[in-house]
């Protein structure tokens, strides 16, 4: 077995050193009835690399990679071009095969990356500080709502109908078990919610998403001020982090907490995970934050260095009194995010965000020209909603037969609802030919 260095001779001499008769003898504390006599049944024996590659390769071949066809899917996961440098650096063994930086003297690489990541997230969101990442955007959102309860000592969260339904469901699931109330408003495909009317003296927070799940972009400055006047926090969720390269950031609108999905930078689609949750707050809430934090300090020689800090909030110290049970971050995904953002820099991120927006505007116009299709958004970033004269799920299946991945039917996110709506996302990876092919195929399918 290629991963196991011990030889039979090694095993024998080690058993002698231990004074055990056999390896099985070392398992003598296991109740006899539960000890298998030999390798478990129902599973194959070991395979060489070539055999594993063939087997997994055959499964991979049954999927249609988004990059092999014109693809316009978004709804919280976006296909962007990831520079070759990112994956090369992420696969350096010193990053890939290190553990959590518990011994800072031999983990300055990971720690400095986290410090830079926290800074990048703070800059992008326009917030004071960010943590070292969460599992994904949806869990980040749920943690933000729990944090708002700790800060305000109130138990009612109000979730906008523009919040991604997966984010809503993760938050309401947590609410049910953890013991707070999450009032989720009905889906709002064309906006028009009066969130403020629902805020009372029991409200811990209002959660909005920008751009929202239907692609609408809004200015939440007034809502932030109004929430805060009533003692509630404003949480802004962002599922397309690239939008932060172009739009007024949530921090500038007055958000108290930003919970975002960072997949757009550096991370492949991966059928939904692993991704990287971003979490940023105003300075005054730092000690109520969940998750891991990296901070600057000095070493015994007075040199600048980095350590994990404020761990008295965390489970390994506080146990049942911790701010969260979270134990990991999304280390490698955060690294990929950070490298991609570093490559882009100020100039690149602005250009890339503008490019995405401009292409989306072009696509919206092309689709609006298809008979029977209506674009619902006035303002959007790189994703918008169209209304079709036929059920979107069936249209998408027809498009898939023509080898076009034509967006996400809204009914997939809201079963049985809004069956004529389709979410369309456009990124720098979509060519003019892709966009023309999509519009032409949609005309055909709707004809």
């Amino acid at each position: 077995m290629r991963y196991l260095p011990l030889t039979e001779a090694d095993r024998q001499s080690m058993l002698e050193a231990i004074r055990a008769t056999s390896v099985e003898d070392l398992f003598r504390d296991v109740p006899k009835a539960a000890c298998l006599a030999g390798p478990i049944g129902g599973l194959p024996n070991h395979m060489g690399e070539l055999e594993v590659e063939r087997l997994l390769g055959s499964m991979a071949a049954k999927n249609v990679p988004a990059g092999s066809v014109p693809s316009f899917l978004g709804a919280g996961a976006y296909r962007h071009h990831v520079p070759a440098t990112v994956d090369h650096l992420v696969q350096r063994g010193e990053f890939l095969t290190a553990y959590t930086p518990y011994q800072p003297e031999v983990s300055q690489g990971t720690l400095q990356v986290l410090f830079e990541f926290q800074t990048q997230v703070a800059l992008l969101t326009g917030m004071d500080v960010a943590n070292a990442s969460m599992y994904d955007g949806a869990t980040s959102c749920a943690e933000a709502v729990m944090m708002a309860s700790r800060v305000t000592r109130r138990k009612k969260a109000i979730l906008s109908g523009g919040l991604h339904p997966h984010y809503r469901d993760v938050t309401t699931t947590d609410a049910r078990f953890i013991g707070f109330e999450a009032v989720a408003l009905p889906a709002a495909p064309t906006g028009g919610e009066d969130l403020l009317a629902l805020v009372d003296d029991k409200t811990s927070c209002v959660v909005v998403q920008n751009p929202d799940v239907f692609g609408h972009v809004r200015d939440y400055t007034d809502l932030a001020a109004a929430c805060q006047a009533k003692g509630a926090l404003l949480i802004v969720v962002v599922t397309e982090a690239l939008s932060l390269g172009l739009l007024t950031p949530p921090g500038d609108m007055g958000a108290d907490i930003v919970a975002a999905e960072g997949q757009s930078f550096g991370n492949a689609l991966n059928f939904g995970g692993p991704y990287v949750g971003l979490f940023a707050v105003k300075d005054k809430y730092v000690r109520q934050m969940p998750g891991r934090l990296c901070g600057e300090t000095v070493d015994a020689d007075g040199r600048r260095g980095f350590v994990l800090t404020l761990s008295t909030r965390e489970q390994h110290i506080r146990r049942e009194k911790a701010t969260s049970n979270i134990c990991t971050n999304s280390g490698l995904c955060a690294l990929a995010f950070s490298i991609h953002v570093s490559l882009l820099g100020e100039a690149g991120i602005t250009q890339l965000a503008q490019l995405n927006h401009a292409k989306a505007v072009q696509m919206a116009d092309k689709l609006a020209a298809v008979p029977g299709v209506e674009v619902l958004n006035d303002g959007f970033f790189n994703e918008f909603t169209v209304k079709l004269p036929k059920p979107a799920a069936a249209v998408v299946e027809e498009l898939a037969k023509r080898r076009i991945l034509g967006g996400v039917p809204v009914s997939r996110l809201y079963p049985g609802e809004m069956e004529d709506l389709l979410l369309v996302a456009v990124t720098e990876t979509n060519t003019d030919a892709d966009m023309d092919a999509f519009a032409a195929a949609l005309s055909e399918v709707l004809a």
Partner: protein
Amino acid sequence: MSMNNQGRPSAIPAGAASFDGVTGTVTGNRGLQIEEPLIFEQDSAGRTGVDLPELPKVASRLGAVKPRAKVGLPGLAEPQVVRHYTRLSQKNYAIDSGFYPLGSCTMKHNPRLNEKMARLPGFSDVHPMQPVSTVQGALELMDQLAYWLKTLTGMAAVTLAPAAGAHGEMCGIMAIRSAHEAKGDSGRTKILVPESAHGTNPATAAACGYSVDAIPATADGRVDLEALKAKLGPDVAGLMLTNPNTCGLFERDIIEIAEAVHAAGGYFYCDGANFNAIVGRVRPADLGIDVMHINLHKTFSTPHGGGGPGSGPVVFAESLAPYIPVPYVTHGKDGFALVENAGEGPAFGRMKAFHGQMGMFVRALSYMLSHGADGLWQASGDAVLNANYVMARLEDVMTASFDGPCMHECLFDDRFLKGTGVTTLDMAKALIDEGFHPMTMYFPLVVHGALLIEPTETESKASLDQFVDALRALAERAKSGDVAYFQAAPRLTPRRRLDETAAARKPVLRWTPPVPAEALAAE
């Protein structure tokens, strides 16, 4: 010299003419150990590491939102970015570079085949919301992984949704609460957790609305069965127990423990963090366990990546099988199907966006297929053999906390350091100078000054011998009274001991632009 907001040097002084007091070099570098400023300290306005096409000429359509003025990110070209991260990587210890016996964390070799498989475009370049007809291979992979996990544990059902071990714990405890609620039993407010448990266990139970009651350990490092029985009653929702436990010991009474918990109407949650010790040899279902999470990044060697991403599937016995979260894969009439909405069944809700950590599923299945039933049998055997060998070779110079045999890790405490002035922490730092990553320190909490060593099955005997020889020599040195040597360690690392107290007292959690020298002078 530019200064950051703390007044510390924020960059290596370019063109410094004097020799550094610490390193004796002009640059502060030491051969292959090269100092690296923050990326923000390498900015040149307008520079970028990507080339993008020209913008199409269209009017923007941002509605009421204004474009932002600036983000504040630094500009670097690609070669600078490559060098930055390469240099940073060289400041990390990693399994690829050496022995990493971090107890309870399972730092075993990460096969590169798994990385290659996860990057096949058929897995990595698939959108989670593609029509199900275009992702049949992805669903087949999830179904296969579920089959392996169920077979290896003997359990009835599995959810792949949780993103990490602690997330899996949440999922398991939510399922337990759902099951009690479904029976109309609302009087169960307590979860029992042994004192030796991982911190996540009590944190999880508390997060799910339970109070936590600690169970003491016996003198041989195991759950005190009588104390447990005394605490069981109609107010107990369940027990959370790690097995093998965090002292590296198998809970001999586990079947009786399970029976007692069941007799009191509770459920038995097993923290599967240490499943790697028994995988392929013992099926948790045969021990009476009702629900258990599995850390794919431990037992099935998906990379730890400096702290994630993890993946924490949870297996369930028949009694809890209905209470799993969405989504899950089913066998439909046209191949595999996905159940994505909780409204469609008794599922308790949703744990994260989309379908789980797919990239980790591919790696874990690649690991399982590579090992097979025979390889996993050998892997858990070698893991236990290695730990017992290390324990046997250190017993005479260090103090083992409990009698063996141990399972995949061996626990020592600091009695052997008594009177030397050397602490567990000092010992760990001295090991760093010897080229090893230290063992886990000060965990579990049930012994004083714990040193928990987990060698894993992917270490050779030569590697174990070198580690043991170094540790023996250090133990002798500590006993000889050379406390100053230990307190000054590590000496040979990119940074020496860091001031963690200062970091927590006045937290600096991000870089901020330097204050210009004129402004400082004006203050």
